């Protein structure tokens, strides 16, 4: 499989294009997603409304796309924030050592000890719920795994010959970090970032579903699914099926791309 690089690149650009398309479509369809029309309420899927309509006659396709675009934006923001946090803390922990290392390791254990959902709920409450609550919650709870990885990497790199030599030659620490350490961490960082993304989206949807995240007026996937719960017993399966399916599709795509990148960058499996 010499063309794994190529196929990964194709998958990566494909998901990038899809991402932009959904965000764009979400912006365009935003108005349709909240327009109620009581002449067409509770329609099962049909050619005009492929995803059906809800009890207020809102087009579920438009709602799903708008919700997906909202989820992607929150997911990208939180994944980026937590990956940067992980990079900073992991590097600081390994490079400075001593009590900084102890404190960071202890905090990692602490954050990992509280189930994610519970921690996100707590942080979201601290921020007064809403968009920023859930964003802060997801960003602040997803960094430990990557931080641990970065820490291990930096610990190894620290003893690398070229780094020891530059240190002896008197290269200032800032430049050492920027020129010699960060380029080596970049692949780990990018893979971690992409693998962070599916988790971030899923947790945002889950916390919103529970009522601690985005407010009910916003067409987020979590809100849509939570609303659908009241109508499932009446047999309106399409309210839950399609929005969830779309979410699974996006998340699976990114999990796949992240996994392929990880395999490519790991020396043991790069040549498979």
């Amino acid at each position, binding site marked *: 499989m010499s063309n794994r690089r190529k196929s990964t690149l194709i998958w990566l650009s494909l998901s990038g294009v899809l991402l932009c398309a959904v965000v764009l479509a979400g912006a365009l369809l935003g108005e349709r997603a909240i327009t109620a029309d009581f002449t067409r309420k509770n329609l099962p899927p049909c050619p005009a409304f492929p995803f059906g309509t809800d009890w207020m006659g809102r087009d579920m396709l438009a709602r799903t796309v708008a919700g997906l675009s909202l989820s992607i934006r929150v997911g990208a923001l939180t994944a980026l924030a937590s990956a940067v946090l992980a990079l900073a803390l992991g590097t600081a922990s390994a490079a400075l050592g001593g009590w900084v290392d102890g404190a960071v390791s202890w905090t990692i*254990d602490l954050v990992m000890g509280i189930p994610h959902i*519970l921690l996100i709920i*707590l942080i979201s409450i601290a921020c007064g719920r809403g968009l920023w609550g859930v964003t802060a919650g997801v960003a602040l709870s997803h960094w430990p795994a990557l931080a641990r990885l970065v820490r291990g990497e930096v610990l190894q790199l620290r003893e690398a010959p070229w780094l020891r030599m530059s240190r002896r030659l008197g290269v200032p620490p800032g430049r050492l970090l920027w020129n010699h350490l960060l380029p080596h961490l970049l692949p780990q960082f990018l893979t971690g970032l992409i693998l962070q993304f599916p988790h971030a989206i899923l947790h945002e*949807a*889950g916390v919103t579903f529970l009522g601690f995240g985005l407010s009910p007026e916003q067409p987020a996937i979590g809100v849509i699914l939570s609303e*659908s719960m009241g109508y499932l017993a009446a047999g309106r399966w399409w309210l*839950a*099926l399609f929005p969830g399916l779309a979410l699974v599709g996006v998340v699976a795509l990114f999990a796949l791309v992240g996994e392929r990148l990880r395999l490519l960058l790991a020396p043991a499996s790069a040549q498979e």
Partner: protein
Amino acid sequence: MSHRLQFTVKKLIRMALLLLGVSLTAFLLMDASPLDPLQTNVGQAALGAMSPEQVARLEAYWGVNTPAAERYLSWLGGALRGDLGVSLLYRRPVLEVIGQRLSASLGLLIFAWALSGALGLALGILAGASRGRWTDRLIRGGCLLLSSTPAFWLALLLLIVFSVWLRVLPIGLAVPIGAAADSVTLLERLRHALLPAVTLSITGVSGIALHTREKVVDVLDSDYILFARARGEERILRRHVLRNVALPALTLQFASIGEIIGGSVLVEQVFSYPGLGQAAVSAGLGGDMPLLLGITVTTAAIVFGGNLAADLLYGVVDPRIRRGAARG
């Protein structure tokens, strides 16, 4: 043996400190909340209609005006004596609420934990042993898809299929609606717990299977397997792979406790199952600080306890660690 004891004591002290940290973190987060417990629970209209004395009494009940440090220290003092305070929503001791809710959830959690662990291990070994073939691809693809599926959506789907379309399983709660608590049979309880338990198990499988596969592939690539093959040994899987995968599998199994508990919060909410997870959600939405704090500390204690158990079991499973500890 004294070495093992020393190790355990060290771990226990670290665990106690972490628990202290968890309680302080949770407390500070809840304290920082701009949400007013009175507004959330009593409502703006009702507050406006009350006399100032009534409002003052309510404020005292929800602890609005007591300084944060004083509240935390008094909570901590009580917690050390085994008193976690009184739940503001349920108006009963927090410990009692947690005990009751946990006993409802525990069966669910243990079933899901055991089933997802066993299934994940079996699938992971199967996939790793048949690396590159279609079984491997199938399992890997399935796991990828499963790990991308939100637990609560899966719960909704199962609910639609089994409760709405087929009508073979109840739609929610832990007991039939309107039935007296002592007239409910065990079978009824099991029927109500089945869907939540299955949902929870399915969501836990993928992580364990994928990680186990990774380990199996590592082991199969090792020199000792090559040597064993060269000697024409049979039953390599059982003699060499299983033994070497046992340690990471143990770690994975005990590390999955937190995830299972987290999943139960979502799944219990969908099935209106009156367990610990659902209590956490009501406590969070209702601003019931003592209960949410109690639940956070309890779940963290369970997670840390799991980690400790894994650390102790390493020595039991792996003779090298046991001997290493004795020598050191």
